[in-house]
């Protein structure tokens, strides 16, 4: 046993050793996401910036693709993090899991290098197999799609086999079933058709059923485990809440898919189904807020890991406001007709991905660093606490500023481009030139810089928190 506060991998179990590898790559890709977001944002203000070298399309592709991949890495890492603890035995097939991690990482590096250096191909099948599939969020070329599926299958094998050989907890059961859906749905995005309506119909199966269904349930599992670890909440309570969340999330989210089927050629009945079920989508997010806040209060905020708990609470609120409220604001077709494809969506996208997912992965980063340093003290008055608090504050201030600025630009677009101008190209550029739109883009960029500062501070904090602590972690106390 090494001294408290020293980074030592013997403090981690096998799954956790693999988890911290995933977390390290996730954090690096998070940095790439922020960097390329800043570049794309600058191009709104100065279109000549990097024109012909790194065009907006390239920066924006890396921005959103890095996000999807780093969150996936974060989720995989988080699952490996809790796996041995939940199942009660070492990870089954860990060597294969490790190999898969290196292959996955190498594939991501190759994909990004090709994005940056090759950028586009000719209008042939070979381009979408080797360079870029050209479909938002799942731009990865087909060879990489297949690689992703293989790596996810290895991951699934690790998780399912470990729970099966060890024990199935409620968290474990939900996680395994959710991963079946998550991996299966990805296949819906892996085919080519000249029919763009059909293309987008299946593309939404991947995008929506990931981010508004299976990913939500996955963070539900992560929250359940996180609350048990940081607060000492009883398993029965978190697992009952988890089932409530699953029922409400899948009950609203699966048919909520319909809100993407208003304008892509799909039948009119989706207006009713999509409108109704997506209006219900915020309900499980309210449940998560109630659950997290109630538990934290019930335990009088006495946690083993204050930064992690703070990020879990941030997740509960961020998910509710970013995904729930911001999503609901423009989900009904009567409104969406004027907001679809404007900066409203960008506002919602930024806030929702941050609120629902980034927050939870960061909470796991903090749980990981604590244990890696030998279960060091990370409760109130941890040495250098200003860093995690300021990182949390700056990331939130930056994100809220971006969200509000994009929303104002979106309002202006809905009114001037859509309602008045009639959505043709002249109307589009009239709206884009309007001072209200331009000011929104300027404030978004300032928000981006603040967010980037928060990211730097977060990384610095993750590398240093607990280093000079000699106190052991506070023990979570069960409360009846």
């Amino acid at each position, binding site marked *: 046993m090494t001294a408290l506060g020293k980074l030592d991998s013997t403090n981690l179990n096998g799954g956790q050793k693999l988890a911290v590898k995933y977390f390290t790559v996730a954090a690096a890709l998070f940095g790439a996401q922020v960097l390329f977001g800043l570049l794309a944002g600058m191009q709104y203000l100065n279109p000549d910036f990097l*024109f012909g070298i790194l065009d907006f399309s390239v920066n924006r592709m890396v921005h959103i693709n890095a996000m999807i991949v780093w969150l996936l890495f974060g989720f995989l890492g988080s699952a490996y993090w809790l796996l041995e603890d939940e199942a009660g035995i070492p990870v089954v097939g860990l060597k294969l899991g490790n190999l898969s991690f290196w292959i996955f990482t190498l594939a991501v590096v190759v994909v990004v290098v090709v994005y940056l250096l090759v950028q586009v191909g000719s*209008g042939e099948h070979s381009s979408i197999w080797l360079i870029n599939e050209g479909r938002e969020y799942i731009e990865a070329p087909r060879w990489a799609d297949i690689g992703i599926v293989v790596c996810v299958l290895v991951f699934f094998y690790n998780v399912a086999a470990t729970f099966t050989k060890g024990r199935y907890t409620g968290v474990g059961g939900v996680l395994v079933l959710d991963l079946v859906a998550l991996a299966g749905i990805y296949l819906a995005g892996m085919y080519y058709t000249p029919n763009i309506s059909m293309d987008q119909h299946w593309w939404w199966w991947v995008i929506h059923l990931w981010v508004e269904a299976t990913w939500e349930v996955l963070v539900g599992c992560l929250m359940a485990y996180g609350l048990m670890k940081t607060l000492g909440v009883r398993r029965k309570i978190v697992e009952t809440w988890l089932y409530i969340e699953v029922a409400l999330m899948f009950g609203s989210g699966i048919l909520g898919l319909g809100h993407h089927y208003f304008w892509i050629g799909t039948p009119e009945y989706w207006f009713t189904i999509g409108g109704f079920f997506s209006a219900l989508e915020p309900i499980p997010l309210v449940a998560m807020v109630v659950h997290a806040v109630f538990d934290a209060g019930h335990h009088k905020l006495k946690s083993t890991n204050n930064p992690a708990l703070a990020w879990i609470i941030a997740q509960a609120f961020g998910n509710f406001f970013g995904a729930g409220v911001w999503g609901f604001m423009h989900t009904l077709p009567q409104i969406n007709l004027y907001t679809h494809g404007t900066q409203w969506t960008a506002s919602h996208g930024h806030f929702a991905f941050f609120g629902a997912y980034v927050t939870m992965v960061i909470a796991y980063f903090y749980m990981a660093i604590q244990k890696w340093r030998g279960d060091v003290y990370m409760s109130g008055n941890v040495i250098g606490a200003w860093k995690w608090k300021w990182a949390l504050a700056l990331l939130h201030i930056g994100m809220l500023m971006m969200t509000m600025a994009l929303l104002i630009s979106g309002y202006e677009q809905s009114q001037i481009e859509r309602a008045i101008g009639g959505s043709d*190209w002249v109307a589009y550029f009239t709206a884009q030139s309007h001072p209200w739109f331009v000011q929104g883009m300027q404030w978004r960029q300032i928000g981006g810089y603040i967010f980037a500062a928060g990211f730097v501070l977060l990384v610095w904090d993750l590398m240093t928190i607990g280093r000079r602590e000699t106190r052991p972690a506070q023990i979570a106390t069960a409360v009846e």
Partner: protein
Amino acid sequence: MSKEIWWASESFWRKNAIWITAGSFIVLIFLTFDTVNQITAGGKRVPAYSAINHRITYEFDEKRNMQVPVIGVEEPLFGTKLTEEEAQALVSRGKLTTQAKNCMNCHTLLGNGAYYAPDLTKSWLDPSWGSKDIREQQMVEFLMNPQDRLHNGLGRRMPNLGITEPEARATVAFLKWMSTIDTNGFPTNFKPIDQEN
């Protein structure tokens, strides 16, 4: 500990979670069969690829209270009438080009994509092309050499993506075909190019 209330019990919610998920998924599968059937090319909502042999307009439908695409008189693209197979091959090449050139990370198509450049759903019908007589050639030339054609006060330009002439023509075919899709009135209040002779 007090006796557990049935509606707050773990097993009640576990069963609910399973049944609600399974039920929703079955409904989705059922609807998917119908939707896929309705959006297969050649139907009422998503016309056959050979629709590019015709004039496409976007007209207000009183009954549905929205604008809908209408396939009108014969007006073949680039003056050449194509069979269904030829039309599909051309549209497909155009769609592959839009994917390989990553159009969706600046533009939106059917409203989905990025917001740095205009929506392409009705680009075939956009009044900015000037007149319908020069539209096809204008589109091809623009796609092949967009970088010097500043068309807005913002300074935003489309980069040269190395689009060849056959790719440009195929892309125009894809865009013309996309404008025939019944998008339930999206975009609304759109004023299309004058196509009357």
